[in-house]
């Protein structure tokens, strides 16, 4: 999925910014248009919201913990103001063979949060083709919707 995202961002005609807030580098080589946000998570939502004021679509690439870490700010900036965003959960959550149990709490909190606000969530285990994945990316960004995609383990569709 990461290489697909990389390719999508390189070729997109939409005004987007990819905000990298993961602890690790993007796994699939060079990624275009990346802003490595060297800061604490409490600034991520504010920065992303600022992008929407400039009519730039924010794509936030981060592990679950960072996404949910400042829930109140997330509610104020995105849920209450009804602004568009796409969160790409960079974590490997969902794989039984990975020692990610410590993140499961956040995983379930995020699911219930997005359900509460009727924000579509997409699970990597159900996005079983590259074309389907690109269609979803395109729909969210082109139509300025909101979405949350769990990327899971790297290597899918690569």
């Amino acid at each position: 999925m990461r290489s697909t995202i990389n390719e999508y961002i390189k070729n997109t005609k939409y005004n987007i910014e990819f905000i990298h807030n993961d602890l690790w580098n993007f796994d699939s080589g060079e990624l275009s248009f990346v802003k490595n946000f060297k800061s604490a998570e409490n600034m991520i939502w504010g920065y992303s919201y600022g992008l929407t004021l400039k009519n730039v679509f924010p794509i936030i690439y981060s592990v679950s913990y960072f996404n949910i870490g400042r829930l109140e700010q997330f509610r104020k900036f995105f849920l209450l103001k009804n602004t568009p965003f796409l969160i790409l959960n960079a974590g490997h959550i969902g794989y039984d063979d990975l020692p990610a149990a410590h993140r499961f709490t956040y995983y379930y909190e995020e699911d219930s949060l997005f359900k509460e606000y009727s924000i579509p969530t997409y699970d990597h285990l159900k996005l079983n083709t590259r074309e389907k994945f690109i269609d979803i990316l395109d729909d969210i960004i082109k139509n300025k919707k909101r979405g949350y995609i769990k990327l899971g383990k790297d290597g899918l569709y690569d």
Partner: protein
Amino acid sequence: MINIIENGYTPLHKKLHDLTKEYNLSHYASSLSALNIWKDIRNKKNLFIGKPFGCQGLFVLDDLIIPPRSIITDPEIFPYDFISVDETLGTILSVALPFKEANVFLTDSFFTMGEFYENLHYLSQNIDYYSNFNIYVDFNNYGISKLNITIDDIIKRMLAFIPENQDKVNFFIYDFSQYSIKDKYHHNLYLK
């Protein structure tokens, strides 16, 4: 650059005036009232107004009234790029980050926040996003009086932050103390 604007004769102004000499800061005497200074600031492009966490009272300037503990979303009432209250300084600044030229007006006694230094650190780390960033600080006497930190400490921290970002960040420090009384008066009305 730290610019101290002397726009009154309050005890805080006296203190700030002394500090300009001690730390060799830029210093401007202004005949403009706080209200007129605000009128000038509010006409600037990419204006972000923040009333940071911990500032309890209303902030009242001319037609701008920012109530406590709320987020203002009505663009017809508040035609500014962004107004937020009860956020951390870092959050308020981060909203302005994508704008290459931004003016941030921080109302009330924003230095009451314990994380002031920490947030300057975050700002410093992401400063490459800016080309010009002006921070207007309402540095009022009422808030200062409640601090566990001295004005000298704050100026020292600002000075420690500034050198690496000399061309990108400008602080403009005002004393809007005369509005503190009005602030408390309106706050009482709001509570009723």
